[in-house]
């Protein structure tokens, strides 16, 4: 048979172009062999840097201070254990890692974790969820599938090989049925498989492009979706007998071109064959009906087309030439340890969805491809980057100085304008290329339709020919059968006649012989008619054969007419793909710059608010120092007033004394005056009496005595008067002094009340400023959280990632020591059932196998718990699983269901038991925090635990309350 093939040279040309572009991107041709040493990618000639260094260099922003500091040891061991093994470290491991002083201990830890059986398990389960999104196991069992993923991870199967195996497996070989799950458990439904190949392997969710170019993502084209569908549309399932078992396996028809139109632009048909985003329409051999299959489709038969589109897909997708494939692979593995993709969501990798550092993800994909898609090496390099080891806490000092930020913003503006110009130019080129493609497609469609028509006619004739040949063969068969019947009847008649001759006494035999001969004659008589019919049928074949031969010429003519048009279409498609690639790059640059500018704007707003806070702080300081001064002057005034009051008291007392002395003096004066007046009267009377009785000696004597007395009394009186005057003067002085002191007091009081008024005003001002400050610093706090998220989205701070349902389940097992208790008991059991010799114990290989066996046994016992966690924390089957959500029924589950409540009861060396045993509350707090959160408690936390435990009636009860509390904290729920 002859094969009609479309321009093999063009076929090769497209392939060559793909290769050239792969080389341009720096990718090596991938042969699937392991080559971990290629970890060191040559950069700028002789200098060699590891992938980790390259990533750190590439993600370093202009200002070094924006790249935060690194996390501490306990943060690192928790983070990397969760990311690589799906569970946190044990308390003892966290403690000893902290204490370890080996310089290279982080790298050594990573090696240890990656060599562990739980790492294999975690990665296998992660790949399961990534690839199957919790679809039910309808045709392939979960155990079989996980076992295949486990062995793939263990042998470090390259990513492209993993994908290739999943696309190629048809499930017919019982030993290799597991990888067929990818397609079989999607029901081999072409749309489902096409969409998920887009999502899982190209990072493009083309669902919206199913019926029209995506209105939301300019890069997601209907042709992309239809091109993928062209790969998957020939697939279907058949049920085969494997012994007495019915087994559903994948089968494949010969593929045809698809015709489609946009629901937004009905009436403009488009056509596509197999096409991958980024490579364009792939040319493939075309076989005529009747020549398409090695094994044709039939009931219970696995059909094998001569040209398998599934094989084509497996090859083209994974051969290293497809940038989208490489980019997606790198992004998905990145998300395994970083909790989010470089670009996010994982199935929305398009030019408007920028990640950091423009084409960083594409370059990362190229490097991953160049390593031979070495998953183990890639993950290891990722966790050894400084980028992975970033600290979690937002440090204000990590934000650059305002001047630098402003300048950076201005520079970005200039760069953005430049990038936008480039993008516009790229867009123009892309539009031109698209127009050329559309024209080529429009030219092709009528010819293609014509070809399909004549091909259809040919197929019809082929069917007729098949039928005619069958009819001829059937008719010939009938003649043969009849002839043999006639021959046998004739022979029987002859035998019967012979017998009748021999047994002439038996007349019945003669009758039988006669009848046989009669029948033989009858049958023989039918023969010519049958033969004629057979001849007619045989003759009918020829014209159909002739027709087919004629039609073949027509088909070949149509084919020849179509061929250059398809070449032209392929050429324009390649040009369009190339232009689209350029546009993508330019758009990434624009989008990244826009993101950077937005972040820059956020930083600037943050800095503005920060300076507002600082300004407010200064004002507050000034107000507070003024307040202090006022306070001091009040204090001074108060002090002075006390002194004045003392003095006033003294003065008042003195005045009182003076007054009473004065009063006493006045009293004495009055007495003296009274007495003087009496004596003076007496003297005057005596004087008068002496006039009458001049010589009365007695009288004279008396008068003299009175005068003398009077004189003495006058002196006394004068003394009294003088004393009184003195006292009056003293009183005046004391009063004046008191007045002075009083006025001093008045002055002091006025000053004090003034100061008091001033201080009230100052306090009010301070309160206003404080309110403002609280509001502003609250705003600054919120902004710092927003900024922290923005930084972490660009990997300048550690990302916050919720534990997956599986991680949560295994983490609960780990911190409640359930996991390690199972490991211990399985180890004992296995050592008893199959003891190891000393020699075996020294054999690393044997010991590794033993660890795998133990892990498998523990997994088999504990896996029954996973569905519960999936039910509460997982996404729906077939839906993206990365989205976080929190709901009341999760909290109700951990609060009230039996499981977690029973596991926090002190037992099996778990944290609560260690707490109960600890005599020192500090030690108890350490056991609690190390056990659940893998870190030492802060002082505040120690105090909290101490307070809870001290004087507790039931320490065990309190210990389990605290353990439950930590298990349900945000810090446990999120890796960070």
């Amino acid at each position, binding site marked *: 048979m002859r094969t009609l093939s479309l321009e093999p040279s063009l076929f090769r040309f497209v392939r060559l172009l793909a290769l050239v572009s792969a080389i341009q991107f720096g990718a090596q041709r991938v042969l699937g062999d392991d080559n971990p040493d290629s970890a060191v990618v040559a950069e700028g000639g002789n200098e060699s840097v590891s992938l980790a260094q390259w990533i750190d260099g590439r993600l370093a922003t202009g200002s070094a201070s924006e790249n935060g500091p690194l996390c501490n040891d306990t943060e690192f061991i928790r983070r990397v254990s969760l990311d690589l093994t799906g569970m946190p470290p044990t308390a003892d491991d966290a403690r000893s890692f902290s204490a370890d002083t080996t310089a290279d201990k982080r790298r050594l830890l990573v090696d240890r974790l990656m060599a562990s059986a739980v790492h294999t398990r975690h990665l296998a389960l992660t790949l399961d969820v990534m690839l199957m999104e919790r679809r039910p196991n309808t045709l392939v069992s979960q155990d079989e599938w996980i076992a295949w993923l486990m062995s793939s991870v263990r042998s470090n199967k390259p990513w492209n090989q993993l994908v290739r195996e999943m696309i190629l497996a048809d499930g017919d070989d019982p030993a290799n049925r597991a990888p067929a799950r990818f397609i079989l458990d999607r029901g081999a*439904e*072409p*749309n*489902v498989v096409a*969409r998920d190949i887009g999502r899982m392997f190209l990072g493009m*969710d083309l*669902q919206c492009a199913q019926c029209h170019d995506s209105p*939301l993502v300019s890069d997601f084209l209907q042709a992309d979706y239809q091109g993928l569908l062209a790969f998957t549309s020939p697939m279907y399932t058949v049920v085969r007998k494997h012994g007495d078992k019915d087994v559903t396996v994948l089968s494949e028809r010969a593929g045809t071109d698809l015709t489609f139109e946009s*629901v937004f632009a009905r009436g403009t048909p488009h056509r596509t064959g197999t096409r991958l985003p980024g490579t364009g329409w792939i040319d493939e051999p075309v076989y005529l009906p009747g020549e398409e299959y090695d094994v044709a489709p039939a009931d219970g038969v696995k059909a094998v087309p001569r040209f398998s589109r599934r094989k084509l897909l497996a090859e083209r997708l994974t051969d290293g030439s497809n940038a989208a494939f490489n980019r997606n692979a790198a992004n998905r593995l990145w998300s395994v340890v970083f909790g989010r993709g470089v670009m996010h969501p994982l199935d*929305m990798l398009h030019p408007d*969805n920028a990640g950091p550092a423009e084409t960083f993800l594409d370059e990362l994909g190229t490097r991953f491809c160049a390593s031979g898609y070495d998953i183990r090496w890639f993950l290891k390099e990722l966790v050894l980057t400084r980028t992975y080891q970033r600290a979690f*806490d*937002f440090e*204000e*000092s990590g934000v650059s100085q305002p001047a630098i930020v402003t300048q950076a913003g201005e520079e970005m503006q200039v760069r953005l304008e430049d990038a936008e110009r480039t993008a516009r130019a790229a867009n123009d080129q892309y539009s031109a290329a698209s127009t050329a493609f559309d024209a080529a497609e429009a030219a092709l469609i009528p010819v293609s339709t014509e070809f399909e028509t004549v091909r259809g006619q040919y197929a019809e004739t082929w069917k007729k020919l098949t039928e005619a040949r069958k009819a001829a063969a059937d008719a010939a068969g009938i003649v043969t059968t009849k002839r043999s019947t006639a021959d046998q009847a004739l022979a029987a008649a002859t035998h019967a006649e012979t017998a009748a001759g021999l047994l002439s006494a038996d007349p019945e035999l003669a009758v039988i012989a006669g009848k046989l001969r009669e029948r033989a004659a009858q049958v023989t008589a039918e023969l010519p008619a049958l033969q004629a019919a057979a001849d007619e049928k045989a003759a009918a074949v020829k014209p159909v054969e002739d027709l087919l031969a004629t039609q073949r010429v027509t088909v070949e003519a149509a084919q020849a007419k179509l061929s250059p048009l398809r070449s032209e279409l392929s050429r324009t498609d390649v040009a369009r793909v190339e232009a689209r690639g350029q546009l993508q790059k330019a758009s990434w640059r624009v989008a990244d710059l826009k993101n950077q500018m937005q972040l820059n704007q956020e930083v600037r707003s943050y800095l503005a608010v920060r300076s507002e806070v600082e300004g407010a702080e200064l004002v507050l300081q000034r107000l507070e120092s003024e307040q202090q001064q006022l306070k001091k002057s009040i204090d001074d005034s108060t002090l002075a007033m006390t002194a004045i009051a003392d003095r006033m008291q003294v003065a008042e007392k003195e005045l009182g004394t003076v007054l009473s002395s004065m009063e006493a003096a006045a009293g004495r004066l009055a007495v003296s005056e009274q007495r003087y007046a009496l004596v003076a009267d007496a003297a005057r009377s005596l004087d008068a009496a002496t006039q009458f009785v001049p010589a009365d000696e007695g009288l004279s004597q008396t008068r003299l005595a009175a005068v003398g007395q009077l004189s003495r009394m006058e002196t006394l009186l004068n003394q009294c008067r003088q004393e009184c005057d003195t006292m009056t003067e003293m009183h005046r002085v004391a009063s004046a002094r008191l007045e002075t002191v009083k006025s001093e007091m008045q002055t002091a009081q006025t000053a004090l009340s003034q100061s008091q008024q001033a201080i009230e005003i100052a306090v009010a001002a301070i309160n206003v400023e404080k309110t403002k400050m*609280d*509001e502003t*610093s*609250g705003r*600054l*706090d*919120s902004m710092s*959280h927003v900024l*922290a*998220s923005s930084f972490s989205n660009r990997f300048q701070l550690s990302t*916050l990632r*919720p534990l997956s349902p599986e991680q949560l389940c295994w983490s609960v097992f780990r911190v409640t020591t359930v996991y390690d208790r199972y490991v211990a008991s399985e180890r004992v059991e296995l050592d008893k059932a199959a003891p190891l010799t000393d020699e075996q114990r020294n054999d690393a290989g044997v010991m590794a196998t033993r660890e795998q066996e133990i892990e498998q046994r523990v997994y088999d016992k504990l896996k029954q718990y996973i569905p519960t966690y999936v*039910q509460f924390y997982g*996404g*729906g*089957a*077939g*839906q993206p699983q990365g*989205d*976080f959500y*929190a*709901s*009341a*029924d*999760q*909290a*109700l589950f951990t*609060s*009230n*269901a039996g499981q977690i*409540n029973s596991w926090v009861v002190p037992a099996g060396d778990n944290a609560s038991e260690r707490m109960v045993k600890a005599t020192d509350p500090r030690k108890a707090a350490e056991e609690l925090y190390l056990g659940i959160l893998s870190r030492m408690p802060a002082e505040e936390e120690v105090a*909290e635990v101490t307070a*809870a435990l001290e004087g507790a009636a039931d320490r065990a009860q*309190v210990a389990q*309350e*605290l353990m*439950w*509390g*930590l298990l*349900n*904290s*945000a*810090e446990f*729920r*999120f890796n960070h």
Partner: protein
Amino acid sequence: MKLNYPCRTAEHGVARRQFLRGVAAGAAAIAGGYGLCNPAAFGETLRSQQKRIVVFNMHGGLSQLESWDPKPGVDTGGPFLAIPTSVPGIHISELLPLTAQQMHHLCLLRGVNTSEDDHGKGAYLMMTGRRQTPAGEFPQLGAVAAKTLSPEDSGLPGHIVITPGGGGGRGNDSAWLGPKFSSVQLGNGNPPPNTVRPENLSEQSDAARQDFRRRVTERFLNRRRTAVTEAFAYSYEQADKLMRQRDVFDVTKEPASETERYGQHDLGRHCLLARRLLENGISFVQVSHSNYDTHNENFNFHIEQMGEFDRAFSTFVADLANRGMLDSTLIVVLSEFGRTPNVNLYYGRDHWSRAWSVCTAGCRMPRGAVFGATNERGTEVVEGQVDHGNLFHTYLQSVGVDSTGNFNIDGREMPIADPSSKPIEGLLT
């Protein structure tokens, strides 16, 4: 320098609450925001006007001829009569005498044509408003209602499905709206699981551990506060609210006289529970009545089933009307399809999606109305033809949701209802 601004002041508490509200909006953007309404606006003011939807799902396919669109006296009509209702001129099947007395509240849509005679596919399109496509699921009406109608701060789930039997759990019916909006299934009307504190845990002990959890979480949130961490912290408060309101789910708290009024059977209890749930602000409740797939003995079966339904449903409608809840509650009685006008050899009717009926009431649905009509023998729609897409749009419009808008799910715009369809024109008041 670590941020050390005062974080424990009352003012900051206010700021934090504001932040939470902002976060609620952010969370909506992350977990799928409803672009057309601001979740932050779902406060006390709106709560009083909160709209709700209740769906009576008549599994298996209720016969329109034995219920909403009787055709007595023709060869396809079956043995039952049509009776007058509280609305002059409108007649329904004599199997629904009590419901007939509530007709002034109802709006019958008699021109439904969904062109899908498969149980699974029919149920899918009636509940999602779209035909099933191979690559991609759509959220059910209950999930859309929970997302658009439930107050953000409600402690109760927004999407409840009361299943006829079996255990509870969570349905897989919210597609890309995410599990937050998937149904909480109340198996045979029992309260949701894990809503009772374990017996060996005292109230004090529970309070102590929750208090410790809250403090530890708050410390972590001071380090990094995002929509995601806030949502996580809040889920425990929601759980607490739900436990406190557990009685909402407990229909035995209703007086025995109420149970008597609704009927002493599962459907009666479920309808009473539905009323209780709606009264307590749950946005969407689905009650199921099984199984109407009457390929055999259609008539005997409908006598029995309609008897149960008539009593429970009419009491439900009357109660909602009396309690003033009809303005805020949309009632929909639907099936996956109707039943053939032709009566088969086994006195049964088979699957029929070309001309059947849906009964609605409340919100913006006209009261005491019939929209659309079938021909004399009930074999074709002759007026007011609508399909699942029109119905879905109309339900949402009726409760005030712009069904032509989009959800923003993780950066993707997802049409709320089938963008190639539209609400029924000129129906809503």
